[in-house]
């Protein structure tokens, strides 16, 4: 019984028990033998009662034999002779009266109950106390690569939880009846349940639980902005730091992969219908997996030579190892999805042509058109869009130049414009590429940085300089038209704008220059028109993104769906996946109600 009540305590060591009245210890140590000694009253006579101090071993010894099933009349403290029976609490198992001792748990004294009936081994905490105790476990950090070491390699920074850390962290979850975290998750993962499975050391089952809702847990565990999603709503987070849901997700997904427990799910009977997915990023992969599992034939079209979309070309190796992305894509292949790389939909095949061969089309092409500020000198040599810089580094592996043929942009003093995850990725990549000084220039303050907290933290640790409340006005070039400095203007924060963030206002006459020989513009992406040029009847909104019915994600063209950044503008991996799920559900609903062709 004990195991299920206070398992998360993981006390293999002995506990210290104290009298609730005189606070003297019940623990006795004689030579090697440790025990807890009480006085008890049984059938009118006073007896000695000896318990094992190890919580997971329930040994009882008495000076007089006690019959199984009998209750003790009373239990007393051997020091102050007062009764320790607590009349307000009953045994959780048999309803008999219980003795109360105090235990020292996580530097706090806490009542602990032991059933007085012989043969009943119930002992534990009340629910309320258990909750208090859980709140005392601090949020567990992931072990990480040393900061001095990691700036000279491209390996992943956090190593991830060990089993023990995961158990501790899982123990912090309160298992709320009305879990708020689930509401914060764009794909509504059953968070309390998967954490409960971790606490029971059923890591594999926990991974399968997540996969019911999320096909890419090892990716989401790494790149989701959990602090704005599930963890934002965590009840533990109201008083302490929230349960590290993302880290736990990552842990079980990695566990499943490393232990070779990933199994191809059962595919429903083939429907004979076919789906075309344009783009192999997070939105497309979700649609592909969902529809394949329902028995549809799925073909994914990818414009680049490598699958994964932003997961491959955008997010650096040290944040999301490419082997993991390829593993997840192989999983889709094993499910029976076809993948066609080097297919630019639009110029090579139009949506109209796809509709001739497929019953439904999903557009998940992302927002891949880099935005520039249109200021003087932006086309100087060594001024890059973040897309180009990251594509060179990640997709083309320019950091391995000349082993790989694509040259790497050089710079000793690097300036990155922007404050999002992409800006952090660029800055940290540049540091690893050997730059002496990397500066992030962002027009608002630290509080408004849109990047994940963890990325900002890591960037800071790695020595990235933050020049906040500054905005570039002009790039200054050398005689041979390479960048040598950026002229910036200082900003102050005004009233909040529509996005709720305080609007940055330039301070007149505060211009100054930042020296640099490489600048990376990471201020966002817009919709890429390459697909739309051949699809004039696809309705776009005023920002140039695809307009969809929010309930089904269907576009203005029948049987053509869209989701992810190409609908919402630059957002997150998990939101794209959520959008893919909506589209897949709607597609399935529509196609399954149609008669077979």
């Amino acid at each position, binding site marked *: 019984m004990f195991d299920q009540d206070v398992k998360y305590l993981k006390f293999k060591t002995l506990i210290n028990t104290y009298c609730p009245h005189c606070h003297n210890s019940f623990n006795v140590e004689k030579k090697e033998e440790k025990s807890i000694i009480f006085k008890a009253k049984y059938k009118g006579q006073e007896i000695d009662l000896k318990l094992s101090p190890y919580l997971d071993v329930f040994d009882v010894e008495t000076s007089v034999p006690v019959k199984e099933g009998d209750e003790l009349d009373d239990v007393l403290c051997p020091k102050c002779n007062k009764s320790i029976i607590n009349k307000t609490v009953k045994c959780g198992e048999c309803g008999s009266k219980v003795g109360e001792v105090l235990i020292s748990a996580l530097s706090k004294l806490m009542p602990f109950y032991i059933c007085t009936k012989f043969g009943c081994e119930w002992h534990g905490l009340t629910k309320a106390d258990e909750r208090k105790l859980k709140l005392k476990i601090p949020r567990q950090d992931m072990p990480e690569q040393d900061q001095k070491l990691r700036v000279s390699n491209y390996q992943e920074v956090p190593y991830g939880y060990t089993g023990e850390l995961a158990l501790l962290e899982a123990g912090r979850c309160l298992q709320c009846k009305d879990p708020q975290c689930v509401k914060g998750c764009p794909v509504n993962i059953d968070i309390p349940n998967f954490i409960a499975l971790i606490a029971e050391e059923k890591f594999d089952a926990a991974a399968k639980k997540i996969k019911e809702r999320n096909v890419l847990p090892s990716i989401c565990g790494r790149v989701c902005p959990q602090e704005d999603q599930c963890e934002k709503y965590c009840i533990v987070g109201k008083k302490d730091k929230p349960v590290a849901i993302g880290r736990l997700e990552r842990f079980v997904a990695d566990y499943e992969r490393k232990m070779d427990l990933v199994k191809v799910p059962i595919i429903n009977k083939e429907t004979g219908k076919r789906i075309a997915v344009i783009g192999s990023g997070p939105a497309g992969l979700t649609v592909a997996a969902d529809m394949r599992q329902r028995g549809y034939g799925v073909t994914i079209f990818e*414009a*680049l*030579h490598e699958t994964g979309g932003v997961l491959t*070309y955008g997010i650096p190796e040290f944040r999301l190892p490419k082997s993991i992305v390829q593993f997840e894509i192989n999983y889709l292949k094993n499910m029976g999805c076809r993948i066609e*790389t*080097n*297919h*630019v939909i639009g*110029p*090579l*095949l139009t949506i109209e042509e796809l509709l001739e061969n497929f019953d439904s089309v999903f557009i998940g092409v992302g927002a*891949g*058109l*880099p935005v*520039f500020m*249109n200021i003087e000198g*932006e*086309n*100087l*040599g*060594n001024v*890059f*869009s973040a*897309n*180009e810089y990251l*594509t*060179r580094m990640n*997709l*083309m*592996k320019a950091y391995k*130049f*000349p*082993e*790989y*043929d*694509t*040259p*790497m942009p050089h710079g000793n003093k690097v300036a990155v414009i922007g404050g999002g995850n992409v800006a952090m990725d660029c800055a940290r990549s540049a540091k690893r590429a050997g730059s002496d000084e990397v500066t992030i220039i962002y027009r608002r303050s630290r509080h408004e940085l849109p990047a994940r907290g963890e990325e900002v933290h890591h960037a800071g640790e790695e020595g990235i300089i933050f020049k906040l409340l500054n905005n570039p006005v002009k790039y200054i070039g050398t005689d*041979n*038209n*390479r960048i040598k400095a950026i002229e910036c203007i200082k900003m102050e924060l005004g009233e909040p704008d529509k996005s709720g963030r305080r609007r940055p206002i330039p301070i007149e006459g505060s211009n100054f220059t930042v020296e640099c020989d490489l600048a990376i513009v990471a201020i966002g992406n817009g919709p*890429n*028109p*390459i697909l739309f040029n051949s699809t004039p009847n696809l309705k776009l909104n005023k920002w140039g993104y695809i307009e969809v019915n929010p309930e089904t994600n269907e576009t203005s063209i029948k049987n053509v769906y869209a989701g992810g950044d190409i609908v919402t503008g630059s957002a997150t991996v998990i939101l794209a996946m959520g959008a893919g799920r909506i589209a897949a559900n709607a597609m399935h609903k529509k196609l399954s109600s149609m008669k077979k062709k």
Partner: protein
Amino acid sequence: MFQIVRKQEMAKGTIIRFDISAPKIAKKVKPGQFIILRVNETGERIPLTVADKDSFAGIITIIFQVVGKTTALMRSLNTGDMIKDVVGPLGKAAEIEKTGTVVMVGGGTGVAILHHVAKAYHEAGNYVIGIIGAQNMDMLILENEMNNICDELIITTDDGSYGEQGFVTGPLKTYLQERYDIKLVYAIGPIIMMKNICKLTKKFKIPTIVSLNPIMIDGTGMCGGCRVKIGNETKFACVDGPDFDGHKVDYDELENRNSIYLKDEKDSLLFSIR
């Protein structure tokens, strides 16, 4: 994987022609459009304009000059070998209409691309005057092919070893002075050539289209590496081009941007030789 079905060495092996089996691309590609290829796993992505196509046989033709690591690697491939990735067709197709008399000017390997466009102008019923140039006689390519589609063809070499001695701008100037019915000049070649041609045609107020070749990675509008200044606007050559109004192009900026990796290119070539 895309198979090289025919390899032909031109200009003493410094210019190579590949016919590549790429049925889907061959079906769609139009004159002026380009492909991006990656030879092998460690290769870079390089853009090459399609010089010809055979939609029926599913073949596209590319012609390239050996200048760096990747093109040297490509020279070592033979008929039957595979190219890992070919993606396309990319870029906007050349806008071809019947306008009357057009002058098609090409220099160096630019002639390869010019040929595809000139053929389309010819087929559209235009009177095509061709001016093609090379460093010397050995470097001249596609003379016969151009002869077949041009109503007049002038050849220039820098050293005078064949045709007229001098640059393509010489005969072009003569034409512009002598003929009043020239509606359009289309120029493809080295940046300096296109720059000088545009200087000339601007004087004569003849619309001029140039095909630009900036550095690219993806070729789909994603990286922005190929940005060029056209008038006051920044355009992406891969999706907005590669053809632009030659009079608006900032050639100096293009030249600058194309020279960013000169040192790396040399390093890469040396590394591969070692």
